[in-house]
């Protein structure tokens, strides 16, 4: 089980092809004590990217080679959930909508008000931390779930779906006693203290379950 190390320093990654702007942003973030890494292009950033480090990305929408939006989509496809703050020279509504839909924290227009940017960065970092924490919980549950036998997983899925023991026994052609035994075994392995807790765990494990 991996534990999120809260002591890890958050880092703000800045990608902008304009060196003046990169320098200005580094100065600003330093003045509030935030760690900064500067990149001239998306490629440079990807080469140095570390998944474990918490933080956020400050990104110009238009970048040479690959645009900020493309990067955002690419990260999402790679299941990298790194909060992104877009800065743009243009107040381009369709672009900002697309960015926000893709999960951007904020879409700011140059020149950026420093407080707006700093607020957005704080929010992003907090979000990243929360997400990382959530991620850690889910990973623990998945590890626990992985210890269940196939039959126990079957029974657990049916239990959290609200089926009674008797019904489950009928469905699975088992005796009710056997169903009970699997159920208590699953509860123990999942370290669930109540049926309600087991249901919450199942929701976290299978986010889609609630929707279907």
């Amino acid at each position, binding site marked *: 089980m991996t534990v999120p190390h809260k002591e890890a320093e958050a880092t703000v990654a800045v990608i902008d092809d304009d060196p003046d702007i990169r320098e200005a942003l580094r100065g600003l973030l330093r003045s509030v004590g935030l760690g900064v890494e500067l990149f001239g292009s998306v490629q440079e950033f990807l080469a140095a990217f570390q998944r474990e480090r918490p933080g956020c990305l400050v990104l110009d929408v238009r970048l040479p080679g690959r645009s900020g939006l493309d990067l955002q989509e690419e990260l999402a496809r790679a299941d990298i959930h790194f909060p992104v703050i877009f800065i743009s020279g*243009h107040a381009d509504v369709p672009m900002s909508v697309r960015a926000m839909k893709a999960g951007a924290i904020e879409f700011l227009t140059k020149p950026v008000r420093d407080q707006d940017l700093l607020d957005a960065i704080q929010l992003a970092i907090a979000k990243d931390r929360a997400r990382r924490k959530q991620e850690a919980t889910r990973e623990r549950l998945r590890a626990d779930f992985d210890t269940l036998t196939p039959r126990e997983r079957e029974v657990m899925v049916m239990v959290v779906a609200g089926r009674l023991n008797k019904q489950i026994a009928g469905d699975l052609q088992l005796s009710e006693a056997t169903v009970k035994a699997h159920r208590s075994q699953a509860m123990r392995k999942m370290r669930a203290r109540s049926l309600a807790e087991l249901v919450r765990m199942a929701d976290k494990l299978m986010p889609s379950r609630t929707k279907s």
Partner: protein
Amino acid sequence: MIVVTSNDITQRKQAEEALRESEAWWREVFEHNPVMYFMVDATGKVQSVNAFGAAQLGYKADELIGQSVLTVFLEEDRELVKGQLATCAGELGRSHSWEIRKVRKDGTVLWVRENGKSVQRSGNDVIVLIACEDITERKRNEQRGAAAYAVTRVLAESDNLAGAAPHILRAIGENLEWDWGALWGLDREAAALRCDCLWHVHDIETAEFDTVSRERTRVREGRLGQVWRSASPSWIVDATTEPGFLRASAASRALLHGGVIFPIILDTEPLGVVEFFSRAARERDAEQLATLSAIGSQIGQFIKRRSAESALRANEERWRKLFETSHAGMALVGLDGVFTAANPALQRMLGHTEQEIVGRNVLELNPEEERAATADALARYRSGSLDERHVEKKYLKKDGSPVWLNITTTLVPATETATPFLQAVYVDVTERVRFEAALRASEERWRAIFETAAVGIATEPLAGGVSSVNPAFQRLLGYNESELQKLTTFDFTHEDDLAATRKLRNGIITGPQRSYRLEKRYRHKDGTIIWADVNASMVPATNSTPAFLAIMVVDITARRHAEDALRVAQSELARVSRLTTMGGFAASIAHEVNQPLMAVVTNADTCLRWLAQDLPDLDEARQAAERTVNAGHRAADIIKTIRALARKSTAEMTRFDINSAITDILTLARGELQRHDILLETDFSAGVQPIMGDRVQLQQVILNLIRNGVEAMSTVTLRRRVLQVSSQIDERGDVVIAVTDTGTGLDPTKKERIFDAFFTTKPEGMGLGLSICRSIVETHGGRLWASPNLTQGSTFQFTVPAAADGP
């Protein structure tokens, strides 16, 4: 006769005496009677001959008595004589008569009429008594007449002397008892006689004499020559002994003796000589000489007549040939106007056959409008007031096509044998008339062009001055023609163009260049300046015209003004277009300005933050403030570039580095390229020389090409969008700036038109961009063109000459 008898002696004596007397008397009568008496026995022996008879033949009686009577006959007649004697002897008492020639002792011949009768003497001997009278005169008369008649007949039946000659010789020879004859013609070149023709009777052998005669081809001397020169006949009694007869020995061998030579005479001129010879010697016969002289003249007349006739025939033949073969049309026309003859050439000219012309009146063939004049001319010919008429008129051929004829009609006056008539000669001058008409039309056309041309036209002698000017030229300069003819081209050429005009003018006069074109200024009569496009050509001398200069002048004053206005308008348009281009880049430009502004604001904020801390970090604050200043300057630079692009409208030629100009413009375009997700690649050659030109205008061109490239790639989604901007030097040292895209490429069907003004492929475009770009580049002495790339997209590039070396 009285016979007395006596029966006594006395009587007998008396009777004897009387008998003797009678006998003597009879003898006297017998001897001297002017009739020749011969008594011949049956064998032909002469028993008796009277003295007259013997004397007539040149003998004494006793020379003949006892001889055969045949000795006095020509050999060829002797059989005949024998026959006649036999006939007489056979019929006693019956008399027979015949005409025959006798030969004298000296060989000469006489004609006699003989009457023979046989009587029986005692002892039964039969004696033939022959009495003969001399009929030579009569016979010769007859012969001469016969000869003259025969010759006349021969001549009448002959065409020429050569054909007549043998017949003439024979006619004379046979009739006048000559055995051999020759005709000697006159060889005018050699001035001598030549034997043209020989004849002889068949029973003599004269080969040697023939040859000797024939071989004498140049006879001037001898008896022949004498006759020729004297033009009078000559008699030869005996050629073998004749003095001056050159062929005497040959004649002797041919047994030829008597002869005659007479001339062929025309008037007094001898044309030849005729000679005859006979085996018998011939006494001079004056009558025959006269007859032959007459025949000689007759032959001369014949020759003259025949040659006159043949000359006439030849002459007529010549005229007929001329008439038939002449290329000129010819006709004979009566004074009534009716054609009596028309030659083939005229038939061809009029397209009518001979039958369609001859017999018709000239008026019928005349074109309608000419008839009155022709009828009038005919009347004047008839009245004798007109001898000859020249006229040129248009006829219609039978097929209706026109033919122009030049006609000379001449009156041929009446002669003894002919009535007056007209002869007409026709020459087809259709070609000439057509040519003249064409020439006239051409001349009129040129004249009209000259007179009505909007272009001013003048001709100038090489020496200077003005020889002719058209109205347009006069209008152009405000002078009339006579005023201009007192001036030279230099008088109305603008001072500043005098030198150039002189130089070009001299250049085409001395060659090899034969024409020049110059845009120059003239000074109008009122002093205003006229701009003219002048084309001058040297027209070389011809046979009829000395060399001159042809000057063509187009007034381009208005064009010049329009061009000036256009230049202003174009500048303005370029500016508008530039602004339009920049409008397209507005977002990009805003972005570019925004960048430094963002830096300024952020850095200023940062600075404030450091200062606002409980313990202000001045060092950090100063660094942030410095960054603020730098970014502010950068923003100012960008603004400056934009302002330069926006404001300028007039060209400013400066020397500058094209690479830095491109870099500046790329700064403006960068944002636009990013917005369209386009990767910019640049490749600037370090060796590019500074160029001389208008920086802003060339930046405008580059910006335009970049914008075109961006738009060309706007629909490209499946491949990378790359815009390459490069500079390099070509082989001529010119700078080449290329903008390459990976867009949709050029539509080949529109490739040529993209540089046209107002041509556009974009719905919102004005279509001025590339047109203005090209004119800007060309103003700089360069070229702008587009070409498709090998793989995709297209390349627009332009050249600008490198500036000459300088500071």
